[in-house]
């Protein structure tokens, strides 16, 4: 084997490319799926935690809301307050391993990883989404309630879409964090990118070369994902142009307004 750095790198790549590829695939799968499920968990938790309680509500509802909010905030505090690597050990050896024992090793690892990342991400997402909901101008909720929408209709049609738009950067950030932090799941033998790299490095004891490759792969993943998320964010801004219609008697007339130019493009009264 070559003693130069680049020689080593190319040797490792040619020998272990499929290992890196599988590790990368598993890293992407568990971090993406974990982020999505984490988002769903966080969504439910945040919606439950933002339910308003009225003085006129029945005592049973008040009590159950208070109990639920105690449970949910405990979940958030515990999972934000301990490292995911420790959570992985506790959950995996505290029963998850047994529960998944019917599965083939690779799938068992993937399933365990998704479950742990989802629970962990859910705790962060819950606070991100709650923050997004309370950051939307309360007037939006009031406007919706004032035309007779129920709290739920107002939340899903008016407040939540605006909250999501506002927290999109934070949601994307969680995904990027998960791509990197899923590496800690090597402690429960999930065959993700870091775990695969460790195996590759151990065979020839070429740690520097192997983990240089690993670092490049992680960076490409996060950088690409960040770019894609920016495109999605921009799409969610909504159109920045609109058409002015003529009055009903001149329904064919229209003027197109774009925000960049603030100029009138075509159309006009006929």
């Amino acid at each position, binding site marked *: 084997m070559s003693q130069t750095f680049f020689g080593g790198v190319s040797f490792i790549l040619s020998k272990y490319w499929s290992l890196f590829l599988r590790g990368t695939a598993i890293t992407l799968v568990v971090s993406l799926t974990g982020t999505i499920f984490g988002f769903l968990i966080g969504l439910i938790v945040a919606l439950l935690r933002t339910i308003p309680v*009225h003085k006129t509500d029945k005592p049973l509802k008040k009590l159950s809301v208070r109990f639920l909010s105690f449970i949910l905030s405990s979940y958030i505090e515990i999972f934000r307050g301990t490292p995911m690597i420790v959570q992985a050990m506790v959950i995996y050896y505290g029963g998850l391993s047994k529960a998944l024992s019917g599965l083939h090793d690779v799938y068992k690892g993937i399933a365990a990883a998704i479950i742990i990342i989802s629970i962990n991400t859910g705790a962060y997402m819950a606070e991100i989404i709650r923050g997004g909901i309370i950051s939307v101008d309360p007037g939006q909720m*009031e*406007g919706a309630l*004032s035309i*007779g929408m129920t709290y739920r*209709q107002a939340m899903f049609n*008016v407040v939540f879409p605006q909250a999501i738009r506002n927290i999109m950067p934070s949601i994307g950030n969680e995904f990027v964090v998960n791509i990197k932090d899923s590496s800690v799941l090597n402690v429960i033998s999930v065959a993700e990118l870091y775990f695969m790299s460790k195996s590759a490095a151990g065979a020839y004891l070429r740690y520097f070369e192997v983990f240089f490759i690993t670092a490049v792969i992680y960076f490409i993943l996060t950088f690409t994902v960040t770019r894609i998320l920016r495109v999605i964010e921009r799409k969610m801004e909504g159109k920045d142009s*609109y058409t002015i219609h003529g009055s*009903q008697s001149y329904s064919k007339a229209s003027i197109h*307004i774009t925000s960049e130019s603030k100029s009138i493009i075509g159309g006009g009264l006929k």
Partner: protein
Amino acid sequence: MSNNNINTNNSSNAILDIINLEKRFGNNLVIRDISMSVFEGEVVSIIGSSGAGKSTLLRCINLLEEPTGGDILFHGKSILTDRKSVSSYRAKVGMVFQQFNLFNNMTVLQNCVVGQMKVLGRSRAEAEETAKMYLDRVGMYAFADALPRQISGGQKQRAAIARTLCMNPEVILFDEPTSALDPEMVGEVLSVMRSLVKGGMTMLVVTHEMGFAREVSSRVIFMDSGIIEESDTPDVIFTSPKKERTRAFISSIL
């Protein structure tokens, strides 16, 4: 002037009866012992200095604030006892806000359509037709496709009025509808409101536009530190108020 009395027992044709209403934020008693009725076709203006509790009263009537005492009757039935009927009550009592509160994630047209579909169960086609009719009436048909951030304050407020009209409310509450507007946009909103008055809409208007209040109101209520100080015809309130506080307020603003 149809009715000057504020007799709460007379709910024969009153849309709203407010009885000894009280709202307290902590130890702060913002409105107390407010009793008044709103009859069909009436335009009632509420005037008074900032902090008098005018907006709080309006927000209590639409249940955006929960009153801490008293009662609100809608066609003789209390709306405070039954939380389930709150939504259908609110649909019949429109509200126009100082800050417009148009839904920022929707176009002007969608703003007017969503409530009709979700609350009144109208089809999209029917809702859009109604929306376009009311947008045309407030002069906003041309901007149906614009997002709230793309139009001016006056346009937003006119769209918000159209949104409320789409729900076919029996009474509309206006909470300082022109206070957040640049001076040159106040006129366009007031003229839309004038046309509603002409159309016979029942309105309860909190306003600082004294000229408007004097011109269109069937009754003017002067509020001071949480109570109704005086309630009378605009002529009496603006030219020969009976109470000293009313006189002081009127002379300070005219």
